[in-house]
């Protein structure tokens, strides 16, 4: 979280406040942060744990999205709903 950390080029290996940082990174991934690009760039460049956490979070989301949203809808469901609505009209 420390924005004044010197930038020596290498990422620091310890994160001073993983709890706050990781929640912040999640908010950024969830699209809940303004000026997120600058904050993110800064954090990922400086901190190894944040860098890893961010990429892991992103990977899990990608996999969830591609593998868990393809449950096929029964073909008759939409017709069934329309029919029932006709009945109550």
């Amino acid at each position: 979280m420390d924005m004044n950390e010197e930038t020596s080029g290498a990422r620091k290996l310890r994160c001073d406040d993983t709890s706050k940082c990781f929640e912040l990174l999640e908010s950024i991934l969830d699209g809940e942060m303004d000026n997120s690009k600058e904050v993110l760039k800064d954090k990922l460049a400086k901190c190894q744990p944040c860098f890893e956490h961010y990429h892991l979070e992103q990977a899990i989301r990608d996999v969830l999205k591609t593998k868990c949203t393809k449950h096929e809808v029964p073909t008759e469901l939409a017709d069934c709903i329309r029919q029932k609505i006709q009945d109550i009209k």
Partner: protein
Amino acid sequence: MSEVQRRKYSQEEKNTIFDGEFMPHIDSMYNFAYRLTFDEDDAKDLVQDTYLKAYRFVNSFEQGTNAKAWLFRILKNSFINEYRKKSKQPAKVDYQEVETYYNSDDVQYQSTSDLRAESVKDMLGDEISNALNSLAVDFRTVIILCDLEGFTYEEMAKILDIPIGTVRSRLHRARNLLKEKLKGYAQNMGYDTDEEEAI
């Protein structure tokens, strides 16, 4: 659905809203219902009941607002009221209790940092799906709403009737729990999850 009664839509408007704004979400609705009930017939009934309720209460839907969030809210309430008892999921977990329990614990970040992003990318559908399904329903729900369906925190708060702060913390806990499950799969697949502790 306790909002103030808005103006009444004509029959034609009702049909337009139903076909144009409600029906396009049937895939997401069924997916959500299936992940709540784990049963295809229950999921079908749940979606059907939700759409019938949506039609019946269409006057309380304000055209131009987020129909998907409105429908998800009805579905989630129907699930709690009618389907939770008979669904095949493990015994009900009281989320307040779960949250208190997990919040009282300092989160173990070691477990999250040693699961490599690469091993997650290689996960098969069943593994990630089982990991998600094994979460308690309140944790599973926030992951579905956020990561699968892309709702904002504000929309989730409305769908779930909880404050935004609770949405945020529940999501955070849910993700940590999911990583715990995935770690187990990764280890079974032979990934070395104990390598280099960064923290």
